[in-house]
């Protein structure tokens, strides 16, 4: 893994026991769900719904860890913390932006041709 790669392949390999078919399917589901989660997170922040923010960010954090995407975990963890404290401020929207930006990077990386 290069230090700039958004995903650590070794993590996904461990999670799927190096089953290439399973890896492909997991990536496909992760990217498909990721788009929906970013959208839902933005909507939860706009609607000032801390419980929903915790639920969505926590779930996104979990699946991101499985595909070895660690960088996206930082804004997501902060959203979970913020949602749990029920203290939402303008930072929440910035965290969603950071999440989306990193997710786009992950999408490009995972859909680009690899060995």
């Amino acid at each position, binding site marked *: 893994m290069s230090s700039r790669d958004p995903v650590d392949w070794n993590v996904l390999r461990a999670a*799927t026991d190096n089953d290439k078919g399973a890896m492909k*399917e997991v990536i496909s589901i992760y990217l498909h*769900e990721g788009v929906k989660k970013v959208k839902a997170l933005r909507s939860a922040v706009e609607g000032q719904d801390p419980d929903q923010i915790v639920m969505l960010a926590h*779930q996104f954090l*979990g699946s991101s860890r499985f595909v070895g995407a660690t960088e996206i975990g930082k804004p997501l963890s902060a959203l979970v913390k913020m949602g749990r404290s029920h203290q939402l401020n303008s930072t929440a929207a910035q965290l969603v932006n950071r999440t989306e930006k990193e997710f786009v990077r992950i999408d490009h990386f995972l859909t680009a041709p690899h060995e």
Partner: protein
Amino acid sequence: MNSAAVAPVEVKRPGPSLGEALVVDDDPVILCILEKALTNIGYLVSTATNASAALRRIERSVPEVIVTDLLMPGMDGKAFCRKIRKNPMTSGVPIIMISTESQLEERLDGFRAGADDYITKPFHVREVKARLDRLVVRNQRALSSNPLSGLPGNPSIELEANRRLSENRPFAFSYIDIDDFKAYNDVYGYESGDRVLKDLSRLLVAAAGSISTESFVGHVGGDDFVIISTAEEMRAILKIVLASFDRESGGYYASKDKQRGGLITSNRQYRKQFFPMMKLSCAVIDTAIRPIHHYAELVEIATELKHLLKSQTHRRASLAQWNGRLQRKSASKQAVYRKLPHRQLA
């Protein structure tokens, strides 16, 4: 993958199934990973995206093991766990809880709710498999143990035989029972009968353990036991078992019965009859002689051999070895096994 609801996943695989595993997680990525991993090792996997759907699924069929997420919308993993433990039908089902939380308090809460094990995301799928296998095997053993002997009972015997059949390596399966045990039980009472069964259990375990660490001893029920081992080890184990039981069985009788060589009591038709002193019968099936594909085949052959050993013609044989053929109720019963009188083993 259908992760939307609780529809069971149809899986076609060769070999015996390890049973049903229910995976509960609201994250389709985790569901996909676990479904594939558990299917690959032989489970029939059902999935549910929330605890309520999982509970409805369990009402239809109780799984062998449950893997559940901790944080889910609606009912969380801990509440789900408590509901499972409260229901007598599911209270013994092993539960593995998974979560991104790795805090000690979270894990302890999971255990308090009734989880048997806890795994933090992201997990290594091989670790999940290992933990699952350990839990399921231990649970099956505990559930099926014979209350008298404490030995693994029928489900565990079947599991062990199927495991060895799936490995495609030859093994020997021996069905052991006590001839004329019922007469002894009738005359001396259940307490004395139970003592004989407990002593025999200990003898089988000690003999098998002295020869091999890989052998398996199970208690089918009543006076019926099973040993699974390699053919070579089985010969040595049974030699010890038969000699020891023969040597010690006299101690179970009063001197008048010992002098007479048996008991006089009513038979199943309520007529007085002489019953010799107890001895062991062992039906041995070596899967190297002819491939056996299913546990039911083993049981069928063992039952047939057992009947032959108890038939009047072969009354004094102690051990029957399957020769690869099975002929029921035929005139040439002698052709299906080789009988070894007890004294030849000594």
